[in-house]
């Protein structure tokens, strides 16, 4: 601390303190000596400091309340051992948290730029191909017993997606041609179909009593989906919203235009084998729904009665338009896991740090 006084620089407190303890070198001490003779204030400060130190040095020593001598070796510290995984060094947890956060960040950014689901940006042709793949994979999922034809009506643009899913509920109808005997057994297994809407609720099945048909609709809100199954008996038509199913099926395309839907149905009808499914697609827009009358073997066409708004489905989406938000797919599950892991490790790390204090 320097005190300025009419051009004279007083001796700093640090120097005074060291000078008092005799820790300054000869030249430095001599300089202090000289300044002390010149400045009464510095002398006064030094004296005050000296008195303070002397008072402190004369503090009486407190008597011991007892002797701390030990009668024997102190007992070993009580081992409060946490379970094995929690006994790792702290850096393990902080590192794991950081890694998980990094993975999460990479996944999210990759997802945001569309790297993870390139097919989502594809055009209707690709969509149709993907739809063709769908039944096979659903067959595997169901144990291979059933041939499934998934008809998917999905919104094309996020806006539409929102509108459709939130207010109407999509009708996803799977029409399936199979043996009569199998129909009943298979139907329950097929009671899941993918519906993209983010807010898709559990769907209650509505069975059409008139036929051995398992018809499930997604009655979203007031607008119930009109299920009309006019098929031959061995047909299971279901419209369901089951989020998990979406995850298990390959990233299912969203853009089903009327033309694409028709294409798919034609394909399906042409290539249908006994074990395979015929697809009927109730497309998002009414034009697709009304215009696609399935060929005879394809039994059911479930059309979703929908209000006029969602008809804005773009038939020719320009390339590069971000895909509609598909709430669940493998990547997003991984994202969620990474986020949960990051938070979890962070919490463990903080708890460990506290425990070690």
């Amino acid at each position: 601390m320097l005190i300025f006084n009419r051009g004279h620089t007083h001796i700093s407190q640090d120097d005074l303190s060291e000078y008092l303890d005799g820790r300054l070198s000869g030249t430095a001490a001599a300089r202090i000596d000289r300044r002390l003779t010149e400045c009464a204030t510095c002398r006064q400060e030094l004296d005050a400091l000296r008195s303070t130190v002397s008072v402190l040095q004369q503090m009486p020593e407190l008597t011991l309340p007892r002797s701390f001598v030990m009668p024997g070796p102190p007992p070993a510290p009580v081992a409060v051992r946490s379970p094995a995984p929690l006994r790792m060094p702290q850096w393990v947890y902080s590192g794991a948290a950081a890694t998980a956060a990094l993975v999460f960040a990479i996944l999210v950014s990759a997802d945001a730029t569309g790297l993870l689901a390139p097919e989502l940006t594809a055009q209707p042709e690709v969509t149709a191909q993907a739809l063709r793949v769908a039944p096979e994979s659903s067959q595997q999922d169901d144990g291979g017993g059933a041939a499934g034809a998934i008809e998917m009506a999905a919104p094309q643009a996020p806006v539409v997606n929102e509108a459709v899913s939130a207010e109407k509920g999509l009708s996803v109808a799977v029409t399936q041609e199979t043996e009569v005997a199998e129909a009943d057994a298979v139907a329950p297994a097929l009671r899941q179909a993918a519906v993209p809407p983010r807010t898709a609720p559990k769907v209650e099945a509505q069975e059409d009593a008139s036929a051995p048909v398992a018809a499930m609709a997604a009655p979203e809100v007031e607008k119930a989906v009109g299920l009309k199954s006019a098929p031959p008996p061995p047909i299971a038509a279901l419209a369901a919203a089951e989020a998990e199913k979406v995850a298990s099926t390959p990233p299912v395309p969203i853009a089903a235009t009327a033309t694409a839907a028709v294409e798919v149905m034609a394909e399906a009808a042409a290539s249908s084998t006994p074990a395979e499914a015929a697809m009927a697609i109730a497309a998002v827009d009414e034009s697709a729904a009304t215009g696609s009358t399935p060929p005879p073997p394809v039994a059911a066409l479930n059309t979703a009665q929908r209000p006029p708004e969602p008809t804005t489905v773009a038939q020719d989406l320009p390339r590069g338009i971000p895909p509609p938000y598909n709430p669940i797919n493998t990547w997003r599950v991984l994202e969620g896991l990474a986020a949960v892991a990051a938070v979890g490790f962070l919490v463990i790390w903080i708890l460990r740090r506290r425990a070690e204090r």
Partner: protein
Amino acid sequence: MVSTAEALNCTTHEPLPVLDRSGATHCYNCIIESMQTQAYNLARRMLEDWSLAEDAVQESFVSGYRAFHQFRGDNLKAWVMRIVANICKDMLRSRRARPTVPLDPISSDPDDPTAPPSAADLPSTEESPEAYAEREELARTIQAGLASLPEEQRLAILLVDVQGMDYEEAAATMHCSLGTVKSRLSRGRGRMKDFLRNTGELLPDLFRQEV
């Protein structure tokens, strides 16, 4: 083990052999005997609470025993005092976190039979009541001044001025550089000086003249 009472020259207590880092045998109880008063004084001045200070010293000696194999055999006082200082700091920290623990002033009511021993309790044979009262008052003031200092400055003053350590020993105890010791000490002394000035009428003539 060969370390009997004779080998360790222990006469007043049970020998408690410990090995330092170099493998040399020491009697831990001898170490305790030589250090306990300083350790208790440091803890008491740091914590201002006699029962906490007792706990701190006890805990320090126990952890010192367990960690003795790390002792390199060079500066026992610094090594022990460092443990005491660290434990005191931990206790201060936890007391700050849970401020419900009542503070026990260092000079307590002499009529209180449960009162801990304090500076005022020391036998004062050839001392007039006035001198006794003045001394007690001074001890109170100093302790209050110490309590007003930041923790590290208080520790520096206690180690250097009260315990009589040199700067190097204090640096080893506080685990900091010499320069840090110097600045903490000088700042702490400056604040103590100001504190004592402000309570000048309580101080002995020696100090009062200079105010």
